[in-house]
């Protein structure tokens, strides 16, 4: 379970997150929607600590992430060693796949288990093969990222994130950079993960897909969650005028 409380984040004088509260239950899929610049990607990046944040707490299964209060009340970031251990409980998939170009597909998937989690080579390889089979790319194991299509690269990136056996999967607009005909294969992979009951937070503009896979949808505007509810509530019975306007524009 993930608990986010009072999360605030600024870039200079611009306040990007103005006090986010969000609970994600085990096995739950939450979609973050909103117009660009609303802070949804920043929220996702804060959860993985790719961005620092000034106030607020993020807890994963009861453990405080990223910051600790010292006895004299000063807030300090956790040590690098601890941050690494915490990050290993999460997998993140980026809009632009971000595979390592100098490694084969299999090595990309193995890297985390092998060198961050110190799993034996044999075990990591077995895991890598299994995950690549799962995303339908076992045949491309020895290919290099640039030899694959965008959809295939993104599926490798999902396998790479899953290889950490994460408690939560963070998906940052993972189909936005893809040609329309490649979107389906990536969405299929995500659909196939639903039965695993892994927590997922997805930032997306694909409202149809969000309706289908998400248990709840959060609509963000100007750094705050304005409306939060079931896909039907948010997409069919929106209350906030901003959300209504947003839905009209997207459709």
């Amino acid at each position, binding site marked *: 379970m993930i608990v986010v409380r009072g999360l605030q984040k600024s870039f200079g004088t611009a306040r990007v997150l103005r006090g986010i509260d969000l609970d994600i239950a085990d096995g739950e899929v939450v979609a973050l929607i909103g117009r660009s610049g609303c802070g949804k990607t920043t929220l996702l990046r804060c959860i*993985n600590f*790719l961005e620092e944040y000034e106030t607020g707490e993020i807890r994963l299964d009861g453990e405080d992430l990223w910051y600790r209060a010292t006895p004299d009340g000063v807030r300090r970031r956790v040590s*690098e060693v601890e*941050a*690494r*251990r*915490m*990050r*290993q409980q*999460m*997998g*993140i998939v*980026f809009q*632009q796949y*971000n*595979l*390592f*170009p*100098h*490694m084969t597909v299999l090595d990309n998937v193995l*890297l*985390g288990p092998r*060198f*961050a*989690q110190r799993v034996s080579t044999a075990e990591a390889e077995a895991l890598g093969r299994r995950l690549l089979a799962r995303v339908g790319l076992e045949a491309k194991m020895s*290919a*290099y*990222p*640039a*030899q*694959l299509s965008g959809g295939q690269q993104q599926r490798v990136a999902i396998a*790479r994130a899953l290889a*950490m056996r994460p408690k939560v999967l963070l998906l940052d607009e993972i189909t936005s950079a893809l040609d329309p005909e490649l979107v389906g294969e990536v969405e299929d992979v995500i659909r196939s993960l639903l039965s695993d009951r892994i927590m997922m937070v997805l930032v997306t503009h694909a409202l149809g897909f969000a309706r289908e896979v998400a248990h709840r949808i959060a609509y963000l505007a100007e750094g705050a969650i304005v409306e939060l509810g079931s896909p039907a509530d948010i997409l069919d019975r929106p209350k906030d005028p901003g959300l209504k306007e947003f839905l009209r524009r997207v459709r």
Partner: protein
Amino acid sequence: MPPGSLALLAQGAAVSLLLAAVAIVGGTLLAVLLAALAFSRFAVVRAAYRVYVYVVRGTPLLVLALLVFYAMPALDLRTGPYIAGTLVLIVYTGALLAEVFRGGVLAIPRPQWESARSLGLPPLAMFRKIVAPLVTRYTLPPYVNVCVMTVKASSVLSIISVWELTLAAREIIERTFAVFTILGLAAAFYFVMCFGIDRLGRLFERHLALKGFAGERA
């Protein structure tokens, strides 16, 4: 051509190549350490790096060589010209290569860092698996540039009586006055060495080319 001069020049070239090889290996190791300092989280360390690069890079190699050669006995370090000369070359090559590597690190796209960080890779694995392979590929052409320059720069050490190709040539010329023949030959030896390094660099480039990119055939 004066008899025996070709053999002497070849021996001189061997010494030059050895000096350059030691300088390149030593300079590369030094440069990796220096480049790491350039990205230190402590401002003092970063400043120290910049001072090193500015001072070494901003001083003629000839002046550096003379300085070390004369300073060492004064400091009661009894080393011959070969040790002093090699050290100067390492220090000099190290400064140039450190900047090459720093540029390579800066060229790593931010998303690559973020991917590696999000996997929770420890620093050593991050260096071995991500930073070193990418920086090697990005910096191979300028790296070879510095290597070629180092071969030629070793000729400066003849001033502090390091017997290598240039000094060998000067000795033969003093004896025989065959200025153009001998200088031409020496230049040819330098050219062959530099050409060899360049070919070697190309070989590595092709070997390391990122698969699936246009650079594979460049």
